């Protein structure tokens, strides 16, 4: 008798845990049938709370915002087909991959207002011609950061990251595609190349560079510069770099003369989204200039919305190269695309570099 009570208790605990989960996911996906909730999956910190709250207040739609830290994680979730997300925020090359895998829905432009608020360069981007699948939300650059405290010469080129003089004082981003941007451009190729020989040359450059490096870092490089542990680093524009530039007059962020690169993170509707109406409402809301301005004011990111500029209160950010890179500096920047099958050459090279 008592034994069966024990067994029942165990079974009950089990059911509770799984049942709990079932009801948990029910309530979250169940909301979609009512049209009252919208599930958004975005890069951390890129859609400020103020934007979410404003949208909720105006429309009465409840938003759950979950965040990811890499396009690949987001893609893995979407490809299960049961992610439950309505709106996602992929980067440009990821948009291409999601289109190819049919994980995002084509956009119905008749339901979108405000696309002409976007900056000219984002209205017809190569990764998504005609913006058939995505609406650019924020943009940024991959460039070069350095500190005057240590570097006493003008910095204009990736070459400083390959310079023996700074041995043990330079860092590269811990990211394959970012590292190859520098290595390809410094060896005279475009960052968008898919040519095997050019990629091999870049790999050799990276291999030769490794002894010079203090390490690979894509998290606290701004801190390393500011505390003097690094002289120069490869860097992404955005929050942490912007803060370092703003708080330390010695720290600078530039795009190298070889070009550097531009990236965008945009909004797209996930395949099988349950609440398509709310998704369009959300995209339209984010296309408003005064809302887009909050990406800069509250999130320290550059908005892809040209008309947002007038509404930005933090005018320092507009002048901060680590947020809005000046137009002339991005003239030569490459727009990084999905390399397609050539990705294998990058991967083989990068594996060799990291393990060497």
């Amino acid at each position, binding site marked *: 008798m008592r034994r069966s009570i024990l067994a029942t208790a165990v079974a009950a605990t089990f059911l509770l845990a799984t049942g709990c989960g079932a009801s948990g996911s029910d309530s979250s996906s169940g909301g979609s049938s009512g049209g009252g909730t919208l599930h958004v999956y975005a890069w951390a910190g890129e859609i400020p709370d103020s934007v979410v709250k404003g949208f909720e207040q105006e429309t009465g739609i409840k938003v759950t915002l979950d965040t990811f830290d890499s396009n*690949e994680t987001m*893609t893995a979730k979407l490809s299960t087909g049961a992610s439950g997300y309505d709106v996602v925020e992929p980067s440009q090359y990821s948009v291409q991959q999601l289109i190819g895998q049919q994980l995002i829905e084509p956009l119905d432009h008749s339901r979108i207002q405000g696309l002409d608020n976007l900056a000219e360069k984002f209205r017809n981007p190569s990764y998504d011609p005609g913006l058939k699948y995505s609406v650019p939300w924020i943009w940024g650059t991959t460039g070069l950061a350095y500190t005057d405290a240590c570097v006493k010469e003008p910095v204009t080129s990736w070459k400083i990251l390959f310079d023996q003089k700074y041995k043990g004082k330079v860092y590269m981003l811990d990211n*394959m595609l970012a590292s190859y941007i520098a290595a390809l451009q410094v060896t005279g190729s475009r960052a968008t190349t898919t040519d095997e020989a050019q990629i091999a040359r870049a790999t050799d450059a990276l291999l030769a560079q490794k002894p010079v490096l203090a390490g690979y870092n894509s998290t606290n490089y701004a801190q390393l510069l500011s505390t003097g542990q690094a002289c120069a680093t490869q860097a992404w524009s955005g929050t942490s770099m912007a803060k370092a530039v703003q708080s330390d007059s010695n720290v600078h962020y530039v795009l190298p003369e070889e070009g550097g690169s531009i990236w965008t993170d945009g909004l797209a509707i996930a395949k099988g989204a349950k609440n398509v109406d709310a998704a369009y409402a959300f995209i339209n809301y984010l296309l408003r200039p005064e809302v887009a301005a909050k990406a800069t004011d509250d999130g320290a990111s550059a908005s892809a919305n040209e008309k947002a500029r007038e509404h930005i209160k933090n005018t320092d950010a507009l002048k901060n190269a680590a947020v809005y890179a000046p137009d002339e500096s991005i003239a030569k920047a490459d727009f990084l695309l999905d390399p397609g099958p050539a990705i294998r050459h990058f*991967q083989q090279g990068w594996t060799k570099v990291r393990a060497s």
Partner: protein
Amino acid sequence: MTSTAVPGTTGAPGVRRLALSAAMLAPAGVVTLALVVAPLVLVIRNSFARTDAYGNVQGGFTLDNYGRLADPVFLKVLGYSLGVAAATTVACLVLGYVVSYYVASRPPQRQLGLLLLIIVPFWTDFLVRTFAWINLLSPGGPVNSVTDAIGLTSGPAGWIPSQGASFIGLVYAFLPTAIFPIYASLRGIDPSLSEAARDLGCGWWRVHGKVLLPIARPGLLAAFLLVFVPTLGVFVIPVLLGGGKDQLVGNLIVTLYTEFRDQPMGAAVSVLLLVLLLACLAAAGVVTRRLRRKA
């Protein structure tokens, strides 16, 4: 020991015993089969699969993924990882034993408090702690001030990034994992046991070596497993504290799975690691059994 006689519930004891055992094993068994063995079968299957242009697993059968493992690059990563894991494990087991013995020899009512004291630091987010270490070990940081004061260094000196900082971070991260199982097995020891041994003239080393260590063996073995294997999979600490120039196999697998979206290759590396570890464990099992038989 108190005991109450229960009115005999008769029946076929063997069958009942078996049924009860099965019921007790069921929860852990179901979890293991459904959530560990099944995914693992999938991983093994995927290690022979091909992918499409986007890195999605396509099925098919190929040995390519294993063929690519012949590259000495992977051997190097594996060797380095095993070395780091071994060093971390030794440090954690020694310190873990010392702390466990200390806790287990306190009055019982204080032991749980001490355990909590040990575990509380780990409720602060792992990354927050790691960044605290970075701040501490940076040039001009607190550790630097101390070494300046006692004359070890003069002027700004930093220990980030370095293998040493990475080692400190790893030991720090896995210490409680070592302490808890060792404590759990020392816990049952009657304190009079070591006193008796001592009274019989056993020195400190002999008491520990001949009496306590054998009792703590299950705990030590558990601690070994819980520290050595997960260390191989660590990827944040070596990057943040060690500079990320030397890759651990965990780091490689994460890169293969996320950045490369190359599941079959990642699966192949994992399967290789799995086989290697199981072989090591089996060998260790055989050796200890032999030793025990001789002893």
